[in-house]
């Protein structure tokens, strides 16, 4: 395992861990591996990495030690540790890795500082105190397609505190024109970031690929958030209608400059 480089990344929610790590995932000189323990088989980060960097191998979190033993030569492994994960857990302690903490520059001392071999200054966000850690609510949305203006409204309401004090939102959402977007919000940073994922348009019924949302905050009204999200989701009929429209639009765009008023 000598030739394998293992990097563990930790830091508070929204500090920029995934962003910092992503810069290394474009370089395909060495076999790339990614693991995010504690987030289960389907998380927004995991899906985003799979969509954006399809060459990166995703490691299942269970049986991690066994898999590490079988990694190919020169493998680069990134281990992203969620803010909720105990840094002193035995698994982490036992791994021979380079430890990187991504923290706000304003933070002078923290368990992350103590743990890390290297400290990277990320987003300047307020760090929750350990005695008041936020809760994480997440929901898969696979198969759901959003009415875009509704999604916009929901994102504004959610991030401006209509359903509890929100510190972080990230999600992958499907739109009726077949595109999927990564949506990212960090309290203290300007705006809500929408990034189109460069994956094929899904124009045949409900998308059979991962989408979902993760909300980090305090006093979250989870039931209302879920209801509001569903109120922004399109029906089968509406999805079919939009998909037909986009298909004929794309066809006419490639054929000739013509449109028909319906």
């Amino acid at each position: 395992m000598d030739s394998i480089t293992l990097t563990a990344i930790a830091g508070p929610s929204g500090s920029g861990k995934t962003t910092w790590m992503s810069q290394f995932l474009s370089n395909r000189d060495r076999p790339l591996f990614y693991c995010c323990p504690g987030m289960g088989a389907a998380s927004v980060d995991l899906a985003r990495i799979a969509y954006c960097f399809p060459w990166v191998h995703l490691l299942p979190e269970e049986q991690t030690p066994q898999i590490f033993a079988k990694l190919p030569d020169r493998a680069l492994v990134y281990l992203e540790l969620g803010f909720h994960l105990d840094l002193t857990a035995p698994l982490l302690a036992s791994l021979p890795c380079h430890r990187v903490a991504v923290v706000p520059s304003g933070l002078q001392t923290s368990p992350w500082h103590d743990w890390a071999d290297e400290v990277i200054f990320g987003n300047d966000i307020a760090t929750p105190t350990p005695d008041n850690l936020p809760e994480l609510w997440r929901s898969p949305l696979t198969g759901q397609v959003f009415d875009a203006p509704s999604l916009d409204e929901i994102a504004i309401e959610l991030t401006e505190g209509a359903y509890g004090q929100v510190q972080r939102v990230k999600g992958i959402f499907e739109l009726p024109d077949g595109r999927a977007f990564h949506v990212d919000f960090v309290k203290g940073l300007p705006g809500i970031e929408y990034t189109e994922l460069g994956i094929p348009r899904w124009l045949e019924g409900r998308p059979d690929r991962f989408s979902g949302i993760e909300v980090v905050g305090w006093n979250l009204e989870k039931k209302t958030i879920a209801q509001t999200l569903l109120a922004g989701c399109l029906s089968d009929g509406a999805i079919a209608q939009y998909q037909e429209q986009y298909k004929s639009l794309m066809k006419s765009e490639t054929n000739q400059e013509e449109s028909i008023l319906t």
Partner: protein
Amino acid sequence: MKLAVISCIHGNYEALNAVLSDIDDRKADQIYCLGDLVGYGPHPNAVVEMIRSLDIPTCQGCWDEDIVEGLNACECSYPSQLAEQRGRVAHEWTNNTIHPEVREYLATLPMTLRLDNLCFVHGSPNSQHEYLLPSMDGFAALERILSTDADVLFCGHTHVPYVRNLEDGTLTVRVQQPGKDELETQFETPLKQIVNAGSVGEPRHGRPNATYVLYDTDTAQVELREVPYDYELTCAAIIAKGLPPIFAWRLARGMEFAERADDPSHVCQR
């Protein structure tokens, strides 16, 4: 004469009271109202009773119309599916809450009101649902005013107050018809004004304060008024009456839903 023009009260009694006090303080001679007395807010009956007791000339808004005619606004009038679902909740609640005589009164409201060279409408002279946004094409806006034969067109519906002066317009028309001489005519348009009264009970300009306008018929001066009021009382009433709490949340931020704004020329086919 000093006119006060109010619009889009939406069952917000607290806001209406504050605006009426402000109008008293400003010593306006006459009040006009551009409709949408009900919908979203918790006190539709009280608002209508107040407007009636003061004999305020009022035109019918789209929400007033829907309460009278049944909800038949086409879905195109909502900016999003979410807004549409919430609009339905608000409509149903209002429909179940208002008194029969309030419904009867709303049915009697005219689409337009006139006072000399002034015309009053809810949305536009064409439709209660049409938006006259300040960004609308100037000639299209001019057409709306000229179609009423007035010099000043007062409207509401967008929930954001503004004044728009349209002046020094020229329009040339050249007609060619088989068997006839070509004919060219040039028109010049004098100053015309659109005055949007904003919203008393559902502001959408990013602050919770009520808005309305004052207009001096002698000087043609317009004053946009922004009136603070205890919006938390209205928010509490929204929740106490069982309306969705998100209505209160948005009201407190001056970001209420309006109808679809991206296609102001759209007139629904219902």
